[in-house]
């Protein structure tokens, strides 16, 4: 029983890996960007756990900028992915333009809230 579960896990991992290698490059770039944003957010949460939440607005602003931009990048990925039936009629340039505009608004709000 134990051996089959570990073998299943390893098989799953290999399947995922080979499927991922097959994804288009632009989606991989988006994934990398999302990982970077989430990683930055995690560093900030760890720092807050260490030092305390004194300028809470600054903490929220920092974390929100990372999470917000990650969410927007995920939305871009969904809209740009050719395998996604829902957004077949949406031009990828339009999706990218939306992404840029939303990010601009996000960063404006973030800098204001940073204090």
């Amino acid at each position, binding site marked *: 029983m134990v051996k089959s579960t570990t073998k299943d896990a390893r098989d799953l991992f290999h399947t995922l890996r080979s499927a991922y290698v097959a994804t288009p490059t632009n989606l991989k*770039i988006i994934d990398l960007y999302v990982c970077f944003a989430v990683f930055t957010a995690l560093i900030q949460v760890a720092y807050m756990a260490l030092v305390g939440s004194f300028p809470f607005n600054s903490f929220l602003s920092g974390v929100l900028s990372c999470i917000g931009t990650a969410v927007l990048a995920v939305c871009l990925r969904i809209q740009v992915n050719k395998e996604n039936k829902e957004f077949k009629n949406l031009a990828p340039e339009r999706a990218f333009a939306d992404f840029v505009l939303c990010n601009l608004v996000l960063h404006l709000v973030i800098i204001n809230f940073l204090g």
Partner: protein
Amino acid sequence: MMNLSRSVALISLFLLPLLSFSFSVDNPTDRRVLVLLDDLSLKSSHSIFFNNLKSRGFDLDFKLADDSKLALQRYGQYLFDGLIIFAPSTERLGGSLDSKSIADFVDSGRDLILSADTSASDLIRGIATECGVDFDEDSSAMVIDHTSFSVSDVDGDHTLIAADDLVKSDVILGKAKIEAPVLFRGVAHSLNPTNNLVFKVLSASPSAYSANPSSKLSSPPQLTGSAISLVSVMQARNNARVVISGSLQLFSDRLIRSGVQKAGSQNQYEKSGNEQFVTELSKWVFHERGHLKAGSLVHHRVGETDEPAIYRIKDDLEFSVEIYEWSGKSWEPYVANDVQVQFYMMSPYVLKTLSADKKGLFHTSFKVPDVYGVFQFKVEYEKLGYTTLSLSKQIPVRPYRHNEYERFIPTAYPYYGACFTTMAGFFVFSFVYLYHK
């Protein structure tokens, strides 16, 4: 005839302000003293004490205690600055004087020396009780001490005691130490322990007790030991000073001139300590010494000279006050290291000891605490023997304005960094995404 009387009246009108010259804020030593005696022979039997007072510039007015023309006030103005009552057996004072008028006299800030003796009348006891001193209820009791009596006591009943338990205060008893014991013969009194305005200047030794010397003791005496005070002093809250002595003979020439040797001790002194004791005590009670005056409180921010109307929390400020001491003739700068200032709002947030410079200026500097509200600078100085100083000045303290906070908070630098890193990352990402092959 009419012209003469009219010109005399005019001249006396001009002289009247001079005649009513008494102690004032600028010159606190008393001037005119009324001396009430129950027997005019006291003038000669206590001549050393009275001549000493006269030589120091006091105007003594001797009157019999039951003189019907006695008056302390005329038309609402007090005629005297000090009162000496050497009339222990007088039951009723003459003229307009009674214990209430004497209490009013002290309430007005004027000083009193009261002395009882082997017989103290109810009037004298009443005046003493008003000042917080209780004489022994037994009217025939005297202070007896079988170990601290003077060897020159001729009666042999050990009522002439040689006391040396003096209060330790340079301002009351002078800088020079009184070497010889003080001779005392009279009644005992005690002080209420909760009263913090009276204190003992000359206490009896632990072996003294108060009883009738000519009869056998039927029960243990009520007043014993160091609870017996021989000479006490009260400084009222308005800085009037009262000396209450249980012995009139303490002031007499006979005891001043006599030598003293305490029983059981080898030291024999040619002259008792009485003269020095009564002289120094009279200097203190008539405000020749130990009288303080304070200028106004000055405070300002460090680096400025004007007094601001409001402080901000965590401001640095400097505080100073000037205190002078009356030397009998002039105001000298007061030097002490225990004057303190409080920054007070319901309780002191800051309590600092002021440092004195030799010119009477006491100053310090501190940081306003991190609390806002209406504070007071308070200087409350109550040192034994000195007049009380009670000064205060109110000042509000406000919190930071919105633009007085620090612009960038150091703890938040990682968050600032993260935001800008994210923006840079977005910028780089968009380039890479658009132009990758």
